[in-house]
């Protein structure tokens, strides 16, 4: 390996999904010198796959108000969301959606020319009243429309992109400042040191932890694992969202918008079973509620199909016309992968791993925070935004349509705060001479030759283990066993060897580095889940079926060192309005 090249930028953005691109845009427009590093070409980032839409209380279809949106989000989070951040997000939502529209996002339209909004799960008017329609949509390709638009605006702003560069590890000095990262040029196989006054992690989630997931192959939580290795904690990793309607057995996502447009779920008796679980909201209850309902139906023998292992999503009553206009992508997807016509037949669905609610703890400016003896402190120079961050606006369960909102709100917020930080910190701090040693060693570890386990084999085992031992329903004994199994896999990671040692576009090596990240996150997830003896949001324990606000209204913090857990209080006090105190959560 040659001595790495060094480059210097004001800001390094790792990840070119919606969050990274929104931040980069803010920075490039402020004429900061930004480098965006992405392991794939930006428009291939997973934001592209988001379908249903982005929440904002525009009130274009039904009356709406940001405060109602805030209530729904707090309730949806099962009261684990931090209410200051939630208020901030819901208040900025309308402005940010208009901004996206001005930037070119091809939103679907209403007859009066305004942005089309559809009902989504967990939305209500008047703090728990009638169903709201809050999700702004570009047909069922909203993520695609947003990601492409944001990339396009970055082209216009002349942002500096490092496409197909893989971030290996953060650089940190003695005083705890983050000084950039070592990245790997995938095409040449050469490492590159990017020094930056500020670094933003926007690497998305880790859906690849589970075998059946709605996520792309690239969603391996690289940023989260980097944070862990830099000695930072991860927050609330036990909360992993299972989307109710993944295509059964395959995992491709069918947007909640399908139910928003009027689709509903039935069991093998043809019963609209959601009426039993959520009499009021029915099929548009929160995702955790619907996922549990489906899993329960299947467990109790009311599943459909020869093995009774899925339920059916009925869309045929909506008519070809509505499907073509509002859900064209879904129509294509189902025809391609299931060879059935949703305009005629119902679609087999099952809860599928979808979204990482947990992540790198940040405040609402996107600054990464870590606990100290009294309260917490900011990690200087480090920011995180999007799915990899845990602000926490999603708490124990994210509402559909809030993730596209999260990425633009906190991408922009981080961008703004970085601009301020850069104003006060004008110069690069010196990089300790040995700072790059650890990242380079991480890379060199994969040069070891010889026989050993394969990356693909271990990854498959990891995913199967996570699915079996850390799925929709959890119990103490299953989780204990899961922890043991995952730790065993972590140990076996050392026996994995690559057969491909070439430099040029070595995807095997990238996958090995991703596997390391996944294993670290699997440990964080199962260990966090093992400790939480209550049911809250996506974390549902059969042995502890109730939410326990007395003991567990707190965020989990997982540290890599000794797999230590700490806890921090939930921020119940919003910025300007009254707090929504925890109460029973019914839909």
């Amino acid at each position, binding site marked *: 390996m040659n001595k790495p090249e060094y480059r210097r930028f004001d800001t390094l953005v790792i990840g070119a999904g919606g969050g990274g691109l929104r931040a980069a845009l803010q920075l490039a427009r402020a004429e900061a010198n930004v480098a965006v590093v992405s392991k*794939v070409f930006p428009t*291939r980032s997973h934001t592209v*796959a988001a379908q249903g839409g982005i929440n904002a209380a525009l009130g274009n279809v039904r009356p709406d108000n940001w405060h109602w949106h805030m209530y729904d989000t707090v309730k949806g989070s099962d009261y684990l969301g931090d209410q200051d951040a939630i208020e901030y997000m819901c208040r900025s939502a309308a402005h940010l959606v208009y901004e996206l529209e001005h930037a*070119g996002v091809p939103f679907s339209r209403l007859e009066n020319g305004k942005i089309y909004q559809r009902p989504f799960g967990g939305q209500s008017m008047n703090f728990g009243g009638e169903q709201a329609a809050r999700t702004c949509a570009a047909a069922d390709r909203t993520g695609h429309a947003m990601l492409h*638009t944001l990339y396009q605006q970055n082209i216009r702003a002349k942002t500096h992109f490092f496409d197909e560069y893989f971030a290996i590890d953060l650089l940190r000095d003695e005083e705890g400042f983050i000084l950039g990262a070592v990245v790997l040029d995938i095409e040449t196989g050469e490492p590159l040191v990017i020094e930056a006054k500020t670094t933003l992690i926007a690497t998305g989630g880790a859906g690849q932890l589970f075998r059946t997931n709605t996520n792309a192959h690239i969603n391996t939580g690289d940023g989260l694992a980097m944070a862990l290795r830099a000695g930072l904690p991860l927050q609330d990793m036990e909360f992993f969202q299972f989307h109710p309607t993944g295509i059964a057995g395959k995992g491709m996502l069918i947007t909640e918008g399908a139910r928003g447009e009027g689709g509903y779920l039935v069991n093998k008796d043809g019963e609209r079973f959601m009426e039993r679980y959520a009499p009021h909201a029915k099929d548009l209850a929160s995702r955790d509620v619907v996922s549990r309902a489906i899993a329960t139906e299947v467990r109790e023998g009311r599943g459909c199909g020869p093995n009774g292992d899925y339920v059916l999503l009925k869309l045929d009553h909506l008519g070809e016309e509505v499907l073509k206009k509002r859900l064209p*992508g879904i129509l294509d997807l189902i025809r391609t992968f299931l060879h059935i016509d949703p305009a005629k037949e119902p679609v087999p669905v099952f809860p599928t791993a979808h979204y990482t609610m947990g992540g790198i703890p940040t405040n609402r400016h996107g600054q990464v925070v870590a606990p100290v003896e009294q309260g917490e402190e900011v990690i200087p120079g480090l920011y995180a935004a999007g799915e990899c961050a845990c602000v926490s606006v999603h708490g124990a369960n994210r509402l559909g349509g809030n993730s596209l909102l999260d990425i633009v709100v906190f991408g922009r917020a981080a961008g703004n705060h970085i601009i301020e930080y850069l104003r006060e910190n004008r110069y690069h701090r010196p990089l300790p001479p040995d700072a790059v040693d650890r990242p380079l060693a991480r890379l060199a570890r994969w040069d070891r030759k010889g026989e050993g386990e394969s990356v*693909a084999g271990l990854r498959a085992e990891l995913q199967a283990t996570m699915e079996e031992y850390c799925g929709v329903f959890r119990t103490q004994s299953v989780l204990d066993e899961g922890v043991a199994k995952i730790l065993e896999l972590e140990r076996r990671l050392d026996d994995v060897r690559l057969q491909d040692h*070439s430099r*040029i*576009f070595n995807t095997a090596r990238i996958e090995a580095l991703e596997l390391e990240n996944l294993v670290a996150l699997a440990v964080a997830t199962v260990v966090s889940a093992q400790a939480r003896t209550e049911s809250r949001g996506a974390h549902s324990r059969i042995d502890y079926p109730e939410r326990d606000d007395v003991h567990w209204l707190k965020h989990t913090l997982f540290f890599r060192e000794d797999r230590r857990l700490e806890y921090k209080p939930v921020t119940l006090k919003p910025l300007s309005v009254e707090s929504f105190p925890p109460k029973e959560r019914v839909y």
Partner: protein
Amino acid sequence: MASMRFRIYRYNPETDTGPRMQDFVLEDVQPGMMLRDALLRLKEQDETLTFRHSCGEGVCGSDAMNINGTNGLACITPLAGLKEPVEIRPVPKLPVIRDLVVDMDEFYHHYRSVKPYLIVHDPEPEVEFLQSPQEREKLDGLYECILCGCCTTFCPSFWWNPGKFRGPAALLQACRFLVDSRDQATAERLEDLEGPYRLFRCHTIMNCVNVCPKGLNPTAAINTIKRLMVKDMI
């Protein structure tokens, strides 16, 4: 179930003097499998087999390749119905980095060259720009492009003039902004496409339409641009 035979283009510039075709056999082919699933399993046989892929459902546009002589996305190409041995090559014309991975810089350059972003000169309202459903409908079939490159790299006009002809993907994007009722740079965009090469190398061969995995029609988009040019002239 049955096994399937593959012939895959291999080239690693570090070790190979030139490209070669490698034969693979995949056992236990399951019904409903897509080509990407097969490639992933072949990569388990031979870790050095290199290709891009990500979302697995045809929205990220990573895994464009030449499959039995036609461009397509591996993740939405069913194995059933492919003639054996399935011959897989990188998409034509672009420089090969390794195996099925090509250098797409030229493609992206053309994309950037058509100013693929909304240009508005008027002050922005505090709410959304109004756009009727009919105006919005004009963007259907244009905005859905995933930049996979299937069309452009299968266009003979692009093969002949890769440096100068913008190619169907970029022209589709140009059209997407030209017909957007919110965009105010029509004249400038049309002017940028003048000249014998950028747009007018298209000879309506329509390979782009045949291979587009999203079912889009770049040829129609190019014709729309020509129509707008004529309208602009008279």
